[in-house]
């Protein structure tokens, strides 16, 4: 019931707010999309992917280059091509990289993203280097809002289905104990590859939509690590490995970010740092634990003292 009301509100939103405000809501949906994608590899599978911005960039450039160039492909087929290419790159890169564990995986993905940014910067004949490319202009804010909203809803359904599928359970098993999962007959390489490819598809779609909306695509804007961080932080704020967590987290993040941008522009990263530290120390499983507990019968409601439970469990004395 509450969900339907929320959906109706989101559908009617472009009629209710100014086009400038709508931009903020569109940004929230794009972030939600990226966070949903990261949740597959980082949340369910437990692999700290730190380079998903690479797929955001690939999606943006593929969409953009197909739409301009000599083909003049329409937006949605171009977007699909970007998603497909990202998935292929993710599988190719994932085969070697997903064999790494822990910190090594995290830094390898970070390195791949950095390297791709430099490639985009230097491949002048294709990407026009750091000057960037310009897409056809489309100024209807509603179009981008509804496109992003549609993908976020699809993402919710996909996450829900994934979490109940054999692959989803396999990925959770890998997160909890990879060796045990392998011994149970789970094809860990395949499952990790699938989760990684899905996360790439989401990032690519987010990148493609952003590219079309921003018109101008440069390596500096579309390969910056900030996007990787935002999707991880949004997922953590909402709740890692939950269906609605990334969307909730993206909403909270965007709210905080917009508010903070407005008030203390120069101290934005400081406040962001505080938010990260707060959530990691006190609410590492995200807001979904606060909301989720109330709803399930048999569990006591969330109390303020639970904030310290994580600290008690994980400190060394």
């Amino acid at each position: 019931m509450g969900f339907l009301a929320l959906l109706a509100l989101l559908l009617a939103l472009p009629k209710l707010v100014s086009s400038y405000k709508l931009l903020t809501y569109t940004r929230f949906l794009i972030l939600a999309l990226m966070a949903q994608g990261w949740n597959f590899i980082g949340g369910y599978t437990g692999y700290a992917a730190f380079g998903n911005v690479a797929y955001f960039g690939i999606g943006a450039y593929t969409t953009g280059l197909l739409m301009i160039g000599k083909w003049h492909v329409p937006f949605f087929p171009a977007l699909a091509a970007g998603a497909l290419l990202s998935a292929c790159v993710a599988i190719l890169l994932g085969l070697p990289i997903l064999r790494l564990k822990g910190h090594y995986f995290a830094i390898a993905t970070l390195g791949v993203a950095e390297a791709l940014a430099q490639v985009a910067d230097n491949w002048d004949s294709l990407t026009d280097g750091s000057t960037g490319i310009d897409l056809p202009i489309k100024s209807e804010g509603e179009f981008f809002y509804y496109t992003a909203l549609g993908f976020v809803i699809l993402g919710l359904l996909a996450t829900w289905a994934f979490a109940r599928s054999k692959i989803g359970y396999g990925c959770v098993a890998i997160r909890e104990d990879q060796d045990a999962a392998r011994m149970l007959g789970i094809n860990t390489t395949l499952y990790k590859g699938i989760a990684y490819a899905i996360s790439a598809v989401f990032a690519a779609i987010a990148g493609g939509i952003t590219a079309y909306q921003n018109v101008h695509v440069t390596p500096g804007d579309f390969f910056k690590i900030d996007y990787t961080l935002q999707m991880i932080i949004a997922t953590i704020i909402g709740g890692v490995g939950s269906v609605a967590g990334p969307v909730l987290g993206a909403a909270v993040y965007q709210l905080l970010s917009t508010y903070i941008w407005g008030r203390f522009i120069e101290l934005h990263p400081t406040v962001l740092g505080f938010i990260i530290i707060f959530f990691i120390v006190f609410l590492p499983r995200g807001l979904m634990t606060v909301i989720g507990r109330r709803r399930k019968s048999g569990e006591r409601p969330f109390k303020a003292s639970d904030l310290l439970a994580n600290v008690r469990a994980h400190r060394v004395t």
Partner: protein
Amino acid sequence: MGGAELGQIFVNAVLLSGILALVALGFSLVWGIMNIVNLAHGAFIVLGAYITFFLHELLGVDPFLSIPVAMLALFTLGWIVQRGLINQVIKAPLLATFLLTFGLELLIVNLINYFFKADLRSVTTPYSGTGFTLGPVRIPYIRLGALGVSLVLVAALAWFLKSSRTGRAIRATGMDIDAARLTGVKVATIYAATFAIGAGMAGAAGSLLSMIVPFDPTLGGAYTQRAFAICVLGGLGNVANVVIGAAIYAFVDVFVGARLPSLSRAVTFAILVLLLILRPQGIAGKSV
């Protein structure tokens, strides 16, 4: 590439490897002992650089003399950060400490930026820019001094870890935390000391870097990545591995930088990723 150019590249790589060893040593110590990849390491380096800069600018302290001050300040900060923040989630899954230190990096760098502005700064002394020539090869005094200081600090830390009581306790904690606790090691204190030493080393590295390269608050990020690459190259475990890793990295970096400047980071990272895939235990080291 002529012989003179080759010689200069070789000397540059040797001079660079000393400071890189210092940068990577603190990082490697924290990682090896506490299993924390400290992404705030770069921010500690920047703080060291600013301490040296302001001591020189405001009080006229010689940059080399300000190194102990930077080390002590960062040692203290490292102790506080470890006891106050990192220790609270140290047993949580890896992503927690990874993100926590990243949040710290963000916060520190932004605060420096806010208070000291993003201007590019450099420490300039009367002997900056002077040096001597050895045949066709030029050696700046400051870089030679930085190499000397780095080697002294690296050797001192190696001795400390090998022979002192605290150093042995640090290594014991890294090997088996429960066994160390049983023999009466105060693990929380040892962790704080380890992290503080790592931060102190970063402070010294920052001091030295401030004399060699112009810097702004974002100087550190690239050095955190280099420290990681060096640890991967050398493998964790002991000081010698870090020095070997730093030397290899310095040579690759300087050679690639001389041939393909615009792609140097892509090439460096490609090598790193390849190495991670082919030889995750490092070139020199034991398994990690």
